[in-house]
């Protein structure tokens, strides 16, 4: 890559910087492009513009003091990140979670997944040039944020989970509000389908753009909707069931084509599946405690290393904890899904037109603070 950048001026290619400040990069991502006219010869993402030292803070903070950090890594689906960290520590320390708390976790995580996909939908179509679906998607998203705010207290960077459960219980207004919202979204999704998904301009911009093969996904470790859009039937909720996901009946949308349209359809279908999970969870919600009976006072996991993976909105989020028996981690590794997903951008965007590469980047659903951690 560096060899291509240090070339003499008689060559036809030029270097273009898709700078850290750009409306289409969804955060501070810089992409160094070597272009031949409008075609990309090489693309190299440059990261680190919002590196906030989460892993170092994992060592400097106690187990509980790290909880606010989880919500700030990927602020759009913060509850999945909360879940990953809390579940990893619970596995390490052997803490049991009461059933009602598990159900509440699932309900809130799935609501968060829908709100993350709605924002992705609005921002993606905005990248392609359509301004209106963003406003409609945000309207739906505000309803979810209201529901979650009534339970957790924050709009965006939630810190709702505690070791062994959740910290606040839901009331009837939340349950009725959620059911109302699901009814409402079920009426809105066909509208998005008819106006946006079947729109000839969107189809021409996304179909056969940015093909990612199964082997490429495997070599780069891409997971989540990127892998499911390439025909790999891999979802941590079914592959490696955690929490109470094994009790729900839901499908995993998998599309074979591997182009941006497939990834788009995977996420739209996932919203419907999340609604199914929420309905089943609300029907089956048991009574009970939301924190374990024996209050968790001091967390001191045994020495050793532990790993836990959850399905975040963008892929498989893994937490590796190396513990030395003290009250803070010895090493905390956060395996972020978008990091692996973006690493295939260099290979996948060779020979593409620049607007198509932006469509590919939008379909990968990037949130840069999650990559840089």
């Amino acid at each position, binding site marked *: 890559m560096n060899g291509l950048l240090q070339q003499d001026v008689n060559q036809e290619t030029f270097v273009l910087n898709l700078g850290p400040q750009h409306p289409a990069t969804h955060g501070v991502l810089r992409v160094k492009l070597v272009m031949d006219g409008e075609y990309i010869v090489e693309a190299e993402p440059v990261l680190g513009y919002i590196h906030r030292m989460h892993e170092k*803070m994992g060592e400097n903070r106690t187990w509980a003091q790290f909880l606010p950090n989880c919500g700030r890594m990927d602020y759009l689906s913060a509850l999945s990140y909360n879940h990953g960290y809390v579940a990893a520590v619970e596995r390490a320390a052997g803490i049991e979670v009461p059933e009602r708390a598990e159900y509440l976790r699932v309900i809130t995580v799935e609501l968060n997944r829908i709100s993350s996909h709605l924002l992705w939908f609005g921002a993606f179509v905005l990248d392609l040039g359509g301004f209106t679906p963003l406003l409609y998607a945000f309207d739906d998203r505000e309803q979810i944020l209201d529901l979650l705010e009534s339970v957790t207290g924050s709009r965006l960077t939630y810190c709702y989970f505690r070791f062994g459960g959740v910290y606040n219980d839901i009331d009837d207004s939340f349950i009725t509000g959620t059911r109302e919202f699901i009814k409402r979204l079920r009426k809105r999704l066909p509208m998005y389908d008819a106006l946006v998904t079947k729109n000839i301009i969107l189809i021409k911009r996304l179909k056969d753009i940015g093909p990612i093969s199964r082997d490429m996904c495997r070599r780069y470790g891409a997971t989540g909707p990127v892998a499911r859009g390439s025909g790999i039937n891999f979802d941590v909720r079914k592959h490696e069931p955690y929490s109470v996901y094994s009790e729900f009946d839901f499908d995993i949308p998998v599309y074979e084509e591997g182009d941006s349209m497939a990834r788009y359809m995977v996420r739209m279908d996932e919203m419907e599946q999340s609604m199914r999970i929420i309905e089943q969870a609300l029907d089956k919600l048991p009574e009970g405690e939301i924190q374990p009976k024996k209050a968790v006072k001091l967390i001191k996991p045994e020495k050793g290393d532990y790993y836990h993976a959850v399905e975040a909105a963008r892929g498989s989020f893994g937490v590796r904890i190396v513990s030395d028996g003290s009250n803070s981690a010895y090493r905390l590794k956060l395996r972020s899904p978008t990091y692996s997903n973006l690493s295939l951008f260099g290979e996948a965007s060779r020979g593409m037109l620049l607007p198509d590469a932006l469509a590919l980047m939008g379909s990968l659903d990037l949130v840069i603070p999650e990559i840089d951690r």
Partner: protein
Amino acid sequence: MMATGASRFDLARFGAEVFRPSPRQCDVMIVAGTISKKMEPAVKTLYDQMPEPKWVIAMGNCAISGGPFVFEGQYGIVEGADKFLPVDIYIPGCPPRPEALIEGILELEEKVTGFRRWPRVEAK
């Protein structure tokens, strides 16, 4: 910020909806989020590229003072936008609510024009 520009907390009512990608056409720069040491020269360049008169809003705890990422031995972030930029308005919050951003913009309007569009809400 995105939610403030969207349907519920419509920022266009105040004439402030136009977010432009190029700094050459802007009057106000909103520094939202943590400024890492790697990003600092880029933000300074953007500020220098803006034509006068220009104002800066620091949005969020991280832009005000480094926020929750200040710890002993931190190596990566700049503790506040006012370390290298002249900031006019500070909007606290982590993250700030859309209403806070609207209030910040109205404050800036008052600072610039001397005229406050909406009466201030006083606590009784």
